[in-house]
């Protein structure tokens, strides 16, 4: 220890000072709440086990059945592709929105206005029945010759309609999320990048966007998990994803509840895996920023909480 200046003296440590133990405050309320929650959980588990109407054997029979797994695969496929479309579109739209080019900014605004302002269900059904409006889709010069084209029914299959519906809609929401991220980055960062001689585009991509990711990623994880479940909407256009596969089975066997449980279990399993992935991605993009201390989660945080509750002395003596 450094000797202190300015007339301040280190207090001399007399030999006889007693070592006093710190006794933390007791929290009897926490014990009561914990007991109540445990009782509630026990009641719930009991009813799940005892009530025969859940038909657990049926759940088990269909849980890994061929058509359910195929449906699950379709759901994952839809989620991944629609989110990819949404993220790419969202980044592009957000960049357009904050660009100094007024045409781009307004075009981006209109896109978001339309796709966020109409129900996804209408958009999905609309894409599915696109051939009713445009029987033939072709690319070419307006009022002139067309280069490639085909019947709308061939080009826009049910799957393509689902991807268009989910992806284009997601693009509108992602655009707002990315824009929020971009404007959260201090203006000085863009100044510094421009002053170093970067063009605006390079500065946005190399400096602003990476920092915006820290703000963009948590809601994007949220959107991804939302998309996983939102994709069940495409059951209305009879695309055999997870929910539709379950519906097909129960409309035949009338085992509605157990099949909904099968689908629900798969949704919750996948969303749990996605949440874990989100944790690691967030940690990666938090580089250079102090990590949030003691994130409460169901994992370590909760265990630590229970330990602390059960053994209040542990922390002070350790």
């Amino acid at each position, binding site marked *: 220890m450094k000797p202190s200046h300015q007339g301040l003296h280190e207090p001399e440590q007399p030999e006889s000072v007693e070592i006093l133990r710190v006794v933390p405050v007791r929290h009897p309320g926490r014990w009561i709440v914990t007991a109540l929650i445990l009782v509630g959980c026990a009641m719930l588990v009991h009813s799940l086990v005892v009530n025969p109407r859940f038909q657990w054997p049926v759940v088990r029979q269909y849980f890994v059945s061929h058509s359910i797994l195929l449906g699950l695969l379709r759901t994952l496929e839809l989620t991944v592709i629609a989110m990819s479309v949404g993220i790419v579109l969202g980044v592009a739209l957000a960049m357009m929105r904050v660009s100094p080019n007024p045409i781009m900014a307004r075009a981006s605004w209109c896109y978001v206005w339309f796709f966020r302002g109409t129900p996804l269900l209408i958009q999905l059904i609309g894409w599915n029945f696109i051939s009713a409006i445009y029987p033939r889709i072709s690319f070419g010069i307006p009022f002139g010759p067309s280069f490639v084209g085909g019947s709308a029914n061939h080009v826009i299959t049910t799957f393509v309609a689902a991807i268009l519906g989910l992806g284009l809609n997601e693009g509108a929401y992602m655009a707002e999320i990315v824009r929020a991220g971009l404007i959260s980055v201090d203006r000085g960062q863009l100044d510094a990048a421009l*002053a*170093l001689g970067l*063009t605006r585009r390079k500065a946005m991509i190399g400096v602003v966007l990476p920092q915006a990711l820290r703000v963009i990623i948590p809601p994007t994880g949220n959107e991804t998990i939302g998309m996983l479940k939102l994709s069940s909407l495409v059951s209305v256009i009879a695309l055999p994803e997870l929910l539709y596969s379950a519906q097909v089975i129960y409309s035949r066997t009338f085992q509605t509840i157990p099949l909904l449980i099968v689908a629900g279990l798969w949704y919750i399993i996948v969303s749990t895996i996605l949440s874990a992935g989100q944790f690691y991605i967030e940690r990666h993009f938090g580089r250079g920023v102090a990590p949030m201390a003691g994130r409460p989660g169901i994992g370590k945080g909760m265990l630590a909480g229970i330990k602390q509750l059960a053994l209040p002395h542990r922390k002070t003596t350790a």
Partner: protein
Amino acid sequence: MTPDTPMVSIQNVHKRFGLLHVLRGVTIHVDQGAVVCLIGPSGSGKSTLLRCINHLEKIDAGQLYVDGELVGYERRGDRLHELKEREVARRRSEVGMVFQHFNLFPHMTVLENVTFAPTRVRGEKEGPVRERATDLLERTGLAAKADSYPGQLSGGQQQRVAIVRALAMRPKLMLFDEPTSALDPELVGDVLDVMRGLAADGMTMVVVTHELGFAREVADRIAFMDGGLIVETGHPSALLSNPREDRTKVFLSRIL
């Protein structure tokens, strides 16, 4: 370019932000190798003038040359044509700028901050840039911090990194926008030392500052700004000790 061409030549420059007339006809020249300090009350237009010099702000009227080239425009006949972004960026890359709040890139390490622009803007090879960066960091006493993130450094260290980041582009002119205003008093000295060294090496510098001691010691000329105009310029000791204008006297009496 003849050696007599001033590095910065500002002639009757005006700048408005909406209704606010921030620069009302500023004229000043900065010779090659000179250090000019801009002082004045807040809101007098010092920072705006500095930002105009590398076209972070567009001027509304007047002429502004850096090293004999018009900033942000090209003269064809009697018209000024706005330059393409790429050309503006190229000219900016030859002017270093240091900000009050450092503006280091927080997601990059110190070394990455320094090597970013030379590799991305000039397309220089990673190896030599890294060597140059390490050398610059060593000279400013930051070699040990090369792999740290800006958030792990003190304000003084961050500002020195910001100076090194600008120097890595080998600028012909350095602009400083209140480089020590956001620092704790005991950290100011280190940053000023680095700037002294730069001035001694012959770098042309325009410094907006409230550090009158530094201005007196290092500046070749001090310009006092108030209300969007340069009220007076002069040799540091003359201007600080015997200001001619009343407004300068009032300002100096307030902060000395």
